[in-house]
């Protein structure tokens, strides 16, 4: 029987007392690769932040690994890449290695220390993102794409069971983007890592994701990409030629 990794029930959520999401209900089970799409302002980031316990639901319930999201403690099971860093300072003086090491703090108890045993995990994550040669560089000295790969390495360093990626490839060149999606595919297929990928690129979802969640303040569609292709939602939201171009390419 499939194990629920995320369970969202009748969720109403938002911020600064303005409601963004209305009556959202869905489940994500172990091994799902869910593409989360929707227009700007549709509540994708609000949904992600509510799942991650950063916003408390106004109504309804969100569970992650069976626990209410705002009471959840096993954060080492979750890797998260935000759309943008809220407080990132381009002159931040930490090295790539120091930044990736921060991803390991979630499984440490006080006083949280990074020791020699952690080096292997850090090096593995750096290798995975092909940035081992950058490990002693300052984060502020990197290009946008390199910086994004560092944050991806930080999200992956714990070998999480759930990866939540909010528009992760916007700053990446096509080659790195392809490599990144191949890594995600391998993590999903081989390691059964559950993935939620927020993106505007419906083609990417068609190529890699097993499910599609279309959000526009409420759930418009949740199911397989094939079902989405065959539905009216595809043409309604992506234009009349989308079905032919995207679904054909996918097939």
């Amino acid at each position, binding site marked *: 029987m499939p194990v629920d990794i995320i369970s969202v029930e009748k969720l109403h959520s938002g911020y600064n007392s303005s409601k963004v999401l209305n009556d959202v209900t869905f489940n994500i089970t172990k091994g799902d690769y869910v593409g989360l799409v929707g227009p700007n302002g549709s509540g994708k980031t609000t949904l992600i932040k509510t799942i*991650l*316990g*950063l916003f408390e639901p106004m109504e309804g319930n969100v569970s992650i690994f069976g626990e209410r999201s705002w009471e959840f*403690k096993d*954060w*080492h099971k*979750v890797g*998260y890449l*935000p759309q943008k*860093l*809220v*407080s*990132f*300072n381009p*002159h*931040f*003086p*930490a*090295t790539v290695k*120091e*930044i990736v*090491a*921060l*991803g390991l*703090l*979630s499984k*440490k108890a*006080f*006083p*949280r*220390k*990074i020791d020699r045993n952690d080096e292997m995990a850090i090096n593995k994550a750096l290798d995975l993102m092909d940035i081992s040669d950058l490990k*002693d560089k*300052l984060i502020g000295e990197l290009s946008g794409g390199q910086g994004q790969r560092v944050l991806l390495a*930080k999200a992956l360093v714990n070998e999480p069971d759930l990866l939540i990626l909010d528009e992760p490839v916007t700053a990446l060149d096509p080659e790195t983007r392809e490599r990144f999606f191949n890594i995600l595919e391998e993590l999903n297929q081989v390691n059964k890592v559950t993935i939620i990928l927020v993106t505007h690129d419906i083609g990417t979802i068609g190529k890699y994701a097993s499910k599609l969640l279309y959000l526009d303040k409420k759930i418009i569609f949740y199911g397989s990409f094939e079902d989405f292709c065959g539905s009216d939602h595809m043409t309604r939201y992506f234009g009349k030629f989308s079905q032919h171009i995207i679904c054909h390419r996918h097939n």
Partner: protein
Amino acid sequence: MDIIEFLNYGFIQRAIIAGSFIAALCSTLGIFLILRRLSLIGDGLAHVTFGSVALGLFLRTHPIYISIPIVMSLSLGILKLMERAKLHGDTAIGIVSSVSIAAGILLASIAGGFNIDLFSYLFGNILAISTGEVFISIALSIIVILIISFYYHELLSITFDEESARISGIKTKKINAVLVLSTAVTVVLAMRVVGIMLISSLLILPAATALQLATGFKNAMMISVFASIVSVISGISVSFLLNLPTGASIVIINFLFFIAAFMYKRLIASNGGQS
């Protein structure tokens, strides 16, 4: 006067020892405050210290004993005000600091008579530091530095990105409280070194110098501590030998360090990153 004779003076020894500990403390915290864009909190808490010193003098108690609990409480007050009233940091700091200055001025006006004492706290006089104050400075500096080292990774994490830190299971409210409480204690101690008017310079300048040269976060902290301690010792020496105000001398030397680091970085950049 030779260096041995200079260092034989008890008041010089006390100033150098206490000043070095406080300098190390300020410069360590300064890195976190600058990167979190909280540099203003040093200024704000210095203004709170002004009010608490006035209260201490009014009550005829040593100002440091009154100031530490008051400044610590009001530092938490600033955090609460930001959280509850949904104010930006600079607004909350502005409210608390201006009210504290106003309270200090009112107390000074009501009491009369302690304006000269208040003046010495405004501009600092580390050469007049007592043995008791030296011990308090050393003890509190060690405690705060230990707290910072225990919470180093949490502080680094919230400084890099507070939201990601929360998702790492870090209790960001607690770590923010640790940061502002440490800053509160530091500001009160630094009042003796450079005076209330110049406290923020001890927090900001060495850290700003370090950010020009750093090759990593720990490296930034080490450069900051080194620049700060050297500035304090040089400032004490120069002020004594040339009969200049000590606090102002320390700040100017700190600034010279910053200029040197800035020019060095520009030079390296113009040579295409080859040192």
